[in-house]
């Protein structure tokens, strides 16, 4: 008899819980729009380095006010951000990995990929520069020197845009390090700021976007920029809309956000962002340009 009561009580509660869950589903479903997504909400998947710079905190509220939308900024590594686009879990992407982005364009996962701004990567390292790379303008040669000297190098190791760039540069240097065989090579597996903090503590070399390094300069007592100016160190930020064919994508808001970033007044804001504070621009606006035109101009300019 009691055994039965026990079972019924447990079953009763399980049923109650299930009913409560169903009620939750029913009420939220009733609230949502027929489109299958919230039309007043835009999911922006972007890179940690861009979000850490604070630029989006400046721009996004302007867009939200104009369009009466709520933007959810999901700040992850570029690899994860692109994956969110492929899976249709974001509406618009703002990332910095041109080759990987191009693959999404070709696969039809995203449309209207457009260059928004650029800046550059730098190789930073300890002031005493054990590998002697200071002043080298050939980034591949500098990396080869670091590898050959066995000087400590801290990598993001998180499939971010910066990590992808780093791997490409090691390939150019014909030295692709691995954590298993190269003791001097550290994979931090965290965001840019966290990686720089580790590099600073360990006296390691690292590849970083200039903006993050500048914003952390108060904490960088051991590290200094050593190699910059190579065309291969250009860092391109592009916006792209997730293909509406995936379903439940807020295509209208995604398009509006892309157009917003390319507008003259917003481009001017991007160029001015923290320029006074650091004595140099963090981002250079590039609406209407392509990676090729920027590279040609940068290659022609004296470094």
């Amino acid at each position, binding site marked *: 008899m*009691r*055994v039965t*009561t*026990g*079972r019924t*009580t*447990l079953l009763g*509660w399980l049923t109650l*819980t299930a009913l409560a869950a169903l009620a*939750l*589903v029913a009420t*939220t*479903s009733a609230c*949502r729009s027929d489109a*299958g*997504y*919230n039309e007043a*909400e835009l*999911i922006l998947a972007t890179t*940690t380095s861009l979000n*850490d710079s604070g630029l989006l*905190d400046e721009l996004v509220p302007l867009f939200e006010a104009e369009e009466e939308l709520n933007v*959810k*900024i*999901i*700040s992850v590594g570029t690899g994860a951000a692109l994956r*969110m686009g492929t*899976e*249709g*879990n*974001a509406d618009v992407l703002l990332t910095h990995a041109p080759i990987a982005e191009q693959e999404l364009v070709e696969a039809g996962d995203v449309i209207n990929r457009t260059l928004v701004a650029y800046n550059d990567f730098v190789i930073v390292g300890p002031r005493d520069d054990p590998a002697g790379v200071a002043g080298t303008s050939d980034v591949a040669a500098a990396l080869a020197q670091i590898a050959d000297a066995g000087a400590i190098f801290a990598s993001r190791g998180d499939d971010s845009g910066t990590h992808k760039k780093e791997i490409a540069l090691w390939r150019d240097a014909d030295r692709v390090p691995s954590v298993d065989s190269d003791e001097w090579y550290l994979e931090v597996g*965290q*965001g840019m*700021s*966290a990686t*720089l*903090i580790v590099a600073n503590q360990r006296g390691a070399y690292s590849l970083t976007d200039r903006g993050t390094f500048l*914003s*952390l300069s*108060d*904490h960088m007592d051991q590290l200094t920029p050593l190699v910059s100016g190579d065309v291969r160190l250009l860092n391109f930020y592009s916006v792209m809309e997730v293909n509406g064919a*995936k*379903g*439940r994508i807020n295509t209208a808001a995604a398009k509006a956000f892309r157009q917003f970033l390319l507008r003259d007044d917003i481009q001017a804001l991007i160029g001015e962002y923290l320029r006074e504070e650091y004595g140099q621009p963090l981002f250079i606006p590039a609406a209407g340009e392509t990676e090729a035109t920027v590279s040609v101009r940068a290659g022609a300019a004296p470094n």
Partner: protein
Amino acid sequence: MDLIWDGIREAARLWWSGDGEIIEITLRTLAISSAATALALLVGIPIGAVLALRRFWGRGLIVAAVNTGMGMPPVVVGLVLVLILVRQGPLGSLEIIYTPTAMVIAQLFLALPMVVGFSLASIQSVNPRLIGQMWAMGANRWQVLWLLARETRLGLLAAVMAGFGAAISEVGASMQVGANLAGETRVLPTAIVLETGRGNWEVAIALGTVLVALAFIVNLVLTTAQQRRLVT
């Protein structure tokens, strides 16, 4: 060492200045974790009571699952919930991903095993003869449950504290299902991760002090209730 002192000074300054953002984040943290704990109690205590008082097929499996759940890594809970709740996931149409609701659900799953485990242990420790006597004296099922709750209040309040502790201290699941959105889903633990990553250690320490103080105050209130009732 200087850094830690700077952090504590910064914490004091933020407290005194009544910084709007820190108050907002603190209240949000308290609201989300309290909601998760309350739901966990509502569902968990009855489950714990049934597991303690009844013998049925599969009970051993459930108890083992509960004990595993008490050590459940928050990131695993977060990962599974994200995959279920993202827009193209099986429950994506609920549109609760990156909302406080999603965080309450994640924390509920972390607090629930604590509540079930603690209430199971404390109810099981009641002398079975006492329960037999209650039945013999003609108490109905709800009266027995009520008397049991009174008898085991020490253990049940421990269940509340353990559940709340699991909910408020976790960061992995909150980060994944909430995305740490400023003004929406940013809570103390995720804000601490953000500020640490940005190298703003003073602010991180300040937030950490607030979090520890918050946990302490909640537990102080619960402990006082627990120990005072013991005397009467």
